[in-house]
């Protein structure tokens, strides 16, 4: 199944691509993208199914840390490359469309 690059998916990918080596957890991602956590979760799951993102539960003692374990996400090597290409491709038609609109607006 091909991944649809909706605006929300692009936001998540952009956040992860800022530092592909960095692991981010759900709340962090939701704060960085401005998306609700319930919106970000299905996106992360789909990205994981596509092999673009890998995730794991952090190994901590919740009592000692006084917070629950987090699930961390990061881009895979292949995922980072594919995400960059896909994001660039997603931006291109929008740029062209905006240029056309601007040209039309300029002549009207």
């Amino acid at each position, binding site marked *: 199944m091909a991944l649809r690059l909706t605006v929300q998916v692009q936001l998540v990918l952009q956040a992860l691509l800022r530092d592909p080596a960095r692991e981010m957890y759900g709340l962090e991602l939701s704060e960085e993208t401005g998306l609700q956590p319930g*919106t970000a979760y299905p996106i992360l799951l789909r990205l*994981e199914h596509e092999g673009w993102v890998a995730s794991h*539960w952090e190994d901590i003692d*919740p009592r000692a840390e006084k917070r629950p374990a987090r*699930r961390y996400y990061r881009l895979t090597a292949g995922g980072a490359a594919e995400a960059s290409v896909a994001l660039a491709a997603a931006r291109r038609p929008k740029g062209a469309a905006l240029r056309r609109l601007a040209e039309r607006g300029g002549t009207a």
Partner: protein
Amino acid sequence: MMLRTMMPRTRLEWVERLAGAGMWIAIGASVFLTSAPLEWTFALAGCVVALAVVSAAAGIPRRRAGRKLVLRKGSGHSGLSGRDATDRPATEAAHPWRTLAAVSRLMPASGGRRWLAEAESLLAEVEAARRAAAARSYLLSAPRLAVMMWARQLMRRVRPGPRRPG
């Protein structure tokens, strides 16, 4: 006037009302599509069950209003049990835990467990003012997520292929 009082007031009531309507549409569709391929019958049956459970789950907080709520213990996986008493959500915000647990049963077992654990983990850390909105966002995305998970599971059974870890 009568119509105005019958209108849902909260978002939860809207979800409940829409889920109820959706359930009847799904039942009607499944009656028409009984001769359709088996996968469609399964998918429609899943939708009917999902909508029924969501509409029932959406009504839980209202039915429980006024009663003393007993907070569920932490799942252990997410470590909610590690939180202290002051970290617990206020009584009115406690229902998402129960609702989330009920809704997670719509999903395939492993997917549901993971979704619930992650929701619990995040809701325990999110600031109190944003907790209700975050829980609502999880609940609202759950039916679509459940359909996505079951469809994936179904496709795996129909076309067994290499499995990805996780």
